[in-house]
């Protein structure tokens, strides 16, 4: 097929070597492959294509080695946003502090509120007054301890059953009160139907009298076990936080406050009380550890620890109405904060650091081509994507060529019914439409939940199985036409061995066609793979391919606002396929100068 070309040496060389004009050594005979190479090199387009391919291979296979990032590395950036740090509000709810081991259920709480609001008793309360109420068959006594700035502090105690009387007779009495003196007084009170007195003093005891239907019940006020105030106890130090809910401690505070003392002792520590205009500060060893105020401040998120500095400053700022302030947080860092009033709630906002994925970020020194819509470095993804695209191309083309040569070879060599059967098979495979098949197979793989790598290999097999027919036809045609040629008939007549016949004569003659077909095929397989990637049928995350990178452009937002995601990927596909086509074209011309057009 390849005509031998003769190249004469330059005249200079001739003179140096001193050969005669007709000297056979003057004539340099090039081997056929060398000639193909020379012709290929002379073709400018082919060289351009070759350079493109070399660059692409270096980019895809060596590039990732030098890339500082890995294939699916996500990038984040710190962003500062005003986020709610703590909330504060003027307290209007009663604060119930219940002694240990004692229960003050919500039913009792509402009854208590009714009783002290005067709705049941109907009288104004003063310091030292008592009111009693009943809830769920239990009786309670409320004592007004204090009125601080118009806000009362109540102590609530339960009652202890003493005796009950029915129809003027005592029918039940606790044994410890069963003395003649008490019995007599109680009987007298029970018989006196007109009396409205709710208390009865006998000796040292003050009994409380209440009537339920026709039964009169005598009870003894128990110890106070609930404190109700409108104050908020804010511990500035975590160590003292449990104390804010400790009944004994709070009771001691109110006791000290009620008696105008400046200090009291609790649990071996001396607490000093300092009253300012708006709040009361409790300090231990000169350090303020707790605030008693009317502003309730709490962290917005449960894991935030509020520092004492913040609590002091925030309550001051809420009172003065300033908007911005700065404080030292629990990590000893200076933080700027601002305050917003919404609906009676004060929201303290701080600029907090949060990590955002660098999604569709434009080109920057760290990411020369920006980041994609997942927050991965695009240049790195393109390199790894190139690996996949080129690898798919090579594997598929190798597979196709292998199948095509075997089937086409068998068909051409054996001829007759084998040929007919195989050619009908080629017709059948040709008839199966590619995209519907690959889409259905894609959804089969989706339903079977095939992994990314297995999917890639299955994909290559499918493309190969659907694509070998072209090469089979070419090989068969070539073999058939070769068999007709005189030199083949001559070699057959000499009784050549089949293997020699195939490998010495057939293969070298089919090879050029195969190489050209494979080179052009590489381009089209890469295109095909890219198209599948674009349709979402190709490789899946975390793998990348050029097509699947462009797939992101199906999102209108990415397409219009982030050109760096899809334009370079497409350009790479275009350039690579163009490179393969240039080289394929150049090879065809080089192999077969007669066909050059």
């Amino acid at each position, binding site marked *: 097929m390849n005509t031998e070309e003769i190249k004469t040496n330059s005249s200079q060389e001739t003179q140096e070597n001193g050969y005669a004009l007709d000297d056979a050594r003057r004539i340099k005979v090039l081997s056929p492959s060398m000639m193909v190479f020379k012709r290929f090199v002379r073709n400018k*387009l082919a060289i351009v294509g070759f350079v493109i391919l070399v660059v692409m291979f270096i980019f895809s296979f060596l590039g990732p080695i030098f890339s500082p990032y890995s294939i699916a590395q996500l990038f984040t950036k710190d962003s500062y946003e005003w986020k709610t740090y703590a909330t504060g509000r003027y307290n209007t709810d009663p604060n119930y502090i219940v002694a240990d081991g004692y229960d003050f259920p919500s039913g009792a709480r509402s009854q208590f509120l009714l009783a002290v609001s005067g709705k049941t008793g109907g009288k104004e309360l003063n310091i030292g007054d008592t009111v009693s109420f009943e809830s769920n068959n239990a009786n309670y006594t409320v004592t007004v301890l204090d009125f601080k700035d118009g806000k009362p502090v109540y102590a609530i105690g339960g009652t202890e059953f003493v005796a009950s009387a029915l129809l003027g007779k005592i029918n039940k009495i606790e044994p410890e009160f069963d003395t003649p003196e008490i019995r007599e007084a109680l009987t007298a009170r029970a018989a006196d139907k007109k009396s409205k007195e709710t208390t009865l003093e006998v000796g040292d005891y003050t009994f409380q009298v209440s009537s339920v239907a026709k039964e009169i019940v005598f009870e003894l006020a128990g110890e106070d076990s609930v404190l109700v105030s409108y104050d908020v106890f804010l511990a500035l130090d975590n160590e003292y936080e449990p104390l804010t809910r400790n009944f004994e401690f709070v009771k001691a505070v109110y006791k000290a406050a009620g008696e105008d003392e400046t200090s009291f002792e609790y649990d071996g520590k001396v607490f000093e009380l300092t009253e300012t205009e708006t709040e009361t500060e409790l300090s231990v060893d000169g350090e303020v550890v707790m605030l008693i105020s009317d502003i309730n401040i709490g962290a917005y998120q449960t894991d935030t620890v509020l520092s004492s500095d913040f609590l002091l400053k925030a309550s001051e700022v809420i009172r003065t109405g300033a908007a911005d302030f700065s404080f030292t947080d629990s990590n000893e860092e200076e933080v700027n904060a601002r305050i917003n009033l919404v609906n009676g709630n004060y929201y303290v906002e701080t600029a907090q650091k949060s990590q955002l994925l660098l999604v569709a970020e434009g080109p920057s020194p760290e990411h020369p081509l920006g980041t994609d819509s997942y927050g991965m470095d695009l240049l790195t993804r393109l390199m790894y994507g190139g690996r996949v695209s080129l690898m798919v191309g090579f594997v598929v083309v190798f597979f196709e060529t292998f199948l095509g040569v075997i089937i086409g070879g068998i068909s051409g060599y054996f001829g007759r019914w084998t040929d007919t059967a195989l050619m*009908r098979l080629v*017709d*059948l495979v*040709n*008839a*199966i*439409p590619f*995209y*519907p*098949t690959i*889409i*259905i*197979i*894609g*959804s*089969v793989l989706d*339903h*079977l939940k095939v992994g990314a790598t297995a999917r890639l290999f299955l994909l290559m097999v499918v493309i190969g199985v659907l694509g070998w027919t072209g090469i089979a036809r070419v090989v068969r045609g070539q073999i058939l036409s070769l068999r007709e040629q005189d030199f083949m008939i001559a070699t057959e007549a000499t009784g050549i061995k089949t293997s020699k016949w195939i490998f010495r004569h057939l293969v070298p003659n089919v090879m050029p066609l195969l190489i050209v077909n494979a080179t052009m095929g590489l*381009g089209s397989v890469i*295109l095909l793979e*890219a*198209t599948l990637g*674009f*349709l*979402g049928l190709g490789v899946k995350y975390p793998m990348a391919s050029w*097509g699947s990178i*462009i797939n992101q*452009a*199906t999102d*209108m937002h990415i*397409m*219009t606002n982030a*050109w760096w995601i*899809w*334009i370079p990927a*497409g350009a790479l*596909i*275009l350039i690579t*396929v*163009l490179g393969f*086509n*240039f080289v394929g*074209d150049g090879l065809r011309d080089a192999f077969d100068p007669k066909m050059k*057009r």
Partner: protein
Amino acid sequence: MSKFLIRRIILGICIIILGALVFYAIIRCLPASYIEKMARQFAASTNGRKTYTEWLTELNHVYGMDSGILTGFFRWCANAIRGDFGDSWKYMKPVTEVFRDSIWWSVLMNIITFVLEILICIPLGILAARKQYSKTDYTITVFALACISLPSFYLATLLKYFLSVKLGWFPLYGLTGRLFNSMTPMQQTGDILYHLVLPVLTLAMLSIGGLTRYVRTNMLEVLNADYIRTARAKGLPEKVVINKHAFRNTLIPLVSYMSFLLPNMFGGAMITEEIFQIPGIGRIAYQAMITGDIPFAMFYTVFLMILTQISLIIADIMYAVVDPRVRVN
């Protein structure tokens, strides 16, 4: 000739049936849970007109999922021959109806593309062949190769980005504008054509490369022929040599090439239609297939296979019609 034709048609039918069987077998690879999922979806979407179990038995029966592959396939075939391809699962309408509604948009688009392609490729190919190895030739070759190497989705997205988003010359997608219903018939036609500009441009660009190179190759072959030398030797003007003697002879291979365009013309352009959201058969089929619409996928595949076989037969006939030499053999 007629004997050959009959043999060719019988072969075509056999290939279609076998191809459909292969495709059917692939579909049967879908796990059984898939049918159950579809039945559940239908039961939910049809507001209890039929219960889940009813749907399940019906689907299993209709698609022969309750029997072997061969039995199921022949049951499908028996229905298909009577024109009953079942209801599309995605569009909830008979498959043939969905097909009728969408096919003509694709055909319209492809005919415009085809005309454009012919108008561009033949002059370009002839020009490149006449000035072989000149700068013009190289430019045209590189351009044609670039068109072949362009991924369709990339070209479509580029056109959308530059011509629609950046310049705002053309609508981004769709077939009709917002005010379509209030337009006169003339305006409506104009609106549709306006919307078809970008898709047609995409399709034309993609197909220009192949045809241009084909025309160039054939033209070169003809230009080297003896009768062209004779014509030149007679002193005929170059125009006549090219247009009458050379070009007419390139038509023979061109006709066979064009008959392969038939499946493209009726099969729709899946990706281009999908990107520009043209409700042609390509987009409809793509949407149906990615949602696993088995009846439509079966129909569309068989339709494409029939088109391919018809185009092959036409190519054979055309050869005989255009080239008397073939008839002799």
